[in-house]
């Protein structure tokens, strides 16, 4: 198969199957239901299973059971459903289990809307569940990346035994673009001797638990996990750098808004303004080191997001406030145009932007 024209949601599903994921547990919610439908249609043909759970809570706990017993498994949802999953996600982290979770974000809070949003950035990167914990968070910005980062998600999840969150949005989920699956490398699942799937009399019993009543034992597990996060930060940070080398004004933007921002950067360059784009692909860990370097050469940063300003605070922290960091965003499902973003660049360039 060469290039196929495919919806973002379906690209994730197809890439998951090609990654060796044979189990999907989910619950319908707009704008990501195509994934469950694709899985329901395709899994039986490849000897897998798509099971529609009674709730998001049940779905993530089915994922928990499947991951604990050693298989590649995923679930997907959209913002309100991800909130429901957060309990299960915390347990999955607490047991150091690998799995992939996709959030095709819609506007919130509450039932919100069904149009694209990036307003779950805080939830995804800071607190998708109780406890001292992080996920590995990947933010695709094209349908090709919806597929390729799904493959990466399974690889990283297994490599570090941690859940990986794909943070997409309603636009990426619903839009169609050509995807070349041949360009994506897919990994094989590793051996999982720690899994609880019957010891067969061949090893000691495996216990999967997140319960440690002795403070020093719990502290020890959290510290070990912190070591793992450090390793992930050293090895797995991803970003796209576009015309940042000589840039005065650097836009920081992920996902769908990074594409809009790129057009604005091009427009600025055409008009003699040295603009650039730093697109974080991993939101957690955040490309802080790169941004810290850029703070030495750029004169201002502009964070463009589909929310009221969430990632902008990570940009401020990363650049240690060496240079002004501005914010521009739309929310509630509204989308800025590249002209809107270009105007922001003009305002910064002219010293007008507050």
């Amino acid at each position, binding site marked *: 198969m060469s290039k196929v024209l495919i919806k973002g949601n379906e690209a994730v599903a197809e890439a998951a199957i090609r990654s060796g994921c*044979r*189990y999907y*547990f989910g619950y319908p919610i707009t704008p990501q239901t195509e994934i469950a439908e694709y899985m329901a249609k395709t899994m039986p043909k490849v000897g897998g*299973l798509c*099971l529609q*759970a*009674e*709730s998001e*809570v*049940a*779905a993530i*706990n*089915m*994922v*928990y*059971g*499947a*991951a*604990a*017993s050693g*298989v590649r*498994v995923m679930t997907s949802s959209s913002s309100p459903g991800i909130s429901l999953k957060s*309990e*299960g996600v915390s*347990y999955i982290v607490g*047991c150091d289990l690998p799995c992939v979770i996709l959030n095709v974000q819609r506007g919130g809070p509450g039932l919100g809307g069904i149009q694209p949003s990036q307003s779950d950035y805080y939830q995804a990167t800071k607190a998708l569940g109780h406890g001292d914990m992080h996920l590995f968070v990947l933010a695709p910005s094209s349908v090709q990346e919806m597929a390729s980062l799904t493959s990466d998600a399974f690889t990283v999840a297994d490599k570090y035994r941690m859940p990986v969150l794909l943070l997409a949005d309603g636009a990426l989920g619903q839009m169609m673009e050509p995807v070349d699956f041949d360009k994506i490398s897919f990994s094989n699942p590793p051996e999982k001797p720690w899994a*609880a*799937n*019957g*010891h*067969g*009399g061949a090893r000691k*019993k*495996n*216990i*999967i*638990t*997140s*319960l440690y009543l002795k403070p020093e034992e719990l502290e020890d597990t959290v510290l070990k996990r912190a070591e793992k996060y450090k390793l992930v930060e050293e090895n797995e940070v991803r970003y796209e750098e576009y015309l940042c080398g000589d840039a005065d004004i650097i836009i920081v933007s992920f996902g769908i808004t990074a594409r809009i921002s790129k057009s604005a950067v091009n427009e600025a360059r055409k008009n003699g303004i040295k603009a650039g784009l730093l697109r974080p692909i991993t939101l957690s860990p955040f490309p802080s080191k790169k941004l810290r370097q850029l703070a030495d050469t750029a004169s201002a940063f502009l964070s463009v997001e589909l929310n009221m300003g969430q990632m902008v605070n990570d940009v401020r922290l990363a650049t240690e406030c060496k240079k002004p960091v501005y914010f521009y965003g739309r929310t509630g499902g509204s989308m800025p145009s590249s002209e809107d973003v270009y105007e922001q660049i003009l305002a910064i360039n002219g010293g007008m932007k507050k």
Partner: protein
Amino acid sequence: MIVYKRPESLSDVPMHYCPGCTHGIVHRLVAEVIDELGIENDTVGIAPVGCAVFAYNYFECDFIEASHGRAPAVATGVKRTHPDKIVFTYQGDGDLAAIGTAETVHAAARGENITIIFINNTNYGMTGGQMAPTTMPGQVTTTSPYGRQKLIQGNPIHVCEMLSTLDGVAYAERVAVNNVKNVRAAKRAIKKAFQNQIDKKGLSIVEVLSTCPTNWGLSPVDALKFVDEKMIPFYPLGVYADRNAMGGDEND
């Protein structure tokens, strides 16, 4: 010669249960059944949140600790990805019939081929004796200090009766472990609940009326009497469902 010894599937460690609590008896019965069916190597247990949270320390098979009420969903995740393994949950009344009602009912409706051991002691034991979905009318707990009142706390749930209405349930029996005769009957029920899974008949649940002397404020002996005099009349023992719900080996 008959030797009374620890079942192979029961770990040789001290249990944390209170004196007079019948969790230990039920653990032993489950372990005996696992031994007798020869399934220890292929069994995965799912522990609840509640007094039996440490069940994973007491059985010699693989174990997963679920969050509160989600054990049937976790069991579904294990069983559906490993249909040749034996998967059982061990849950209390708050876990199974309050916070986990949705997971319980839907696993039962789907006919998940799993075994559920359900401990009904009419209160939340681990947190210190609060009202459970199975607390009986008039029963005093720390959160029904004037006795459970229909118009305030509402009615309890009869789990076996409710689940027996669902097509995916192969077997639902309520037993008790308050005397030797009942313990022997409980063992037969637990064995059947595991055998049904081997035979792929659907979901099997054994509800065990158990004691909680500590939170009931009774001596162990009086607690056994409480089961006989108060619980069994309200929660009648017996078989509520017994059928090949999911077609058994015919599906192979």
